[in-house]
């Protein structure tokens, strides 16, 4: 198990270093990013249940006993982010005066180590998403449809 994790991390680092060496709008960048996109699609189709249902409907006690809304702070942060992004995108003025998420990402892309790190974080996020939505985890949360459980 540990050897598998080490291999996975090493593979991710190597792949990120390779992907970070490509230039956007070129075939190598499209291919190396596209491979991850395809792998994510295949992983989701293979590991996720076909249908799920809301956690509250089946495990309401475990969700509501915790506190009022532990997810609300994150929703607020997300909305603040979207509002500020939209304001900067739509307001008149130069991009340097009104930086968007994309323009800041362009600045990060100009640094090879930073770009490799961001690519690695993107891969890790994909792994987390696949794991958290997998059949086994959904089954433990009680969000999987009974026919599939």
């Amino acid at each position, binding site marked *: 198990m540990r050897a598998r994790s080490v291999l996975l991390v090493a593979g991710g680092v190597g792949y990120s270093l390779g992907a970070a060496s490509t230039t956007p*709008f070129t075939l190598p960048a499209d291919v190396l990013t596209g491979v991850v*996109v395809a792998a994510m699609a295949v992983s989701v189709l293979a590991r996720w249940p076909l249908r799920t249902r809301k956690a509250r409907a089946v495990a309401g006690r475990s969700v509501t006993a915790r506190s009022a809304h532990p997810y609300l702070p994150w929703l607020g942060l997300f909305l603040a982010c979207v509002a500020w992004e939209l304001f900067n995108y739509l307001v008149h003025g130069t991009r340097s005066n009104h930086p968007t998420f994309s323009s800041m990402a362009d600045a990060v892309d100009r640094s090879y180590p930073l770009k490799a790190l961001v690519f690695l974080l993107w891969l890790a996020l994909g792994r987390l998403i696949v794991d958290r*939505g997998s059949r086994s985890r959904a089954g433990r949360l009680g969000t999987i449809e009974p026919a599939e459980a």
Partner: protein
Amino acid sequence: MSVSTASYVVWAAIGALAVALWWLSYVRPAAVAHPSEVVGRLATHPVGRVLLVLAFLWLGWHLFAR
């Protein structure tokens, strides 16, 4: 303070807020969910999981391929 500086200050504040929420998720888990729990909640929600995967794919394509 220039317009540019003010814009970056707001972005920095949003980033700092994210870090603060992350820290709060450890010290007050009852009040603030851990980021991995947020991902887990979305990944098992009937509609949220579709939006989550689409957002992930769009993010990567936009950042690295475009």
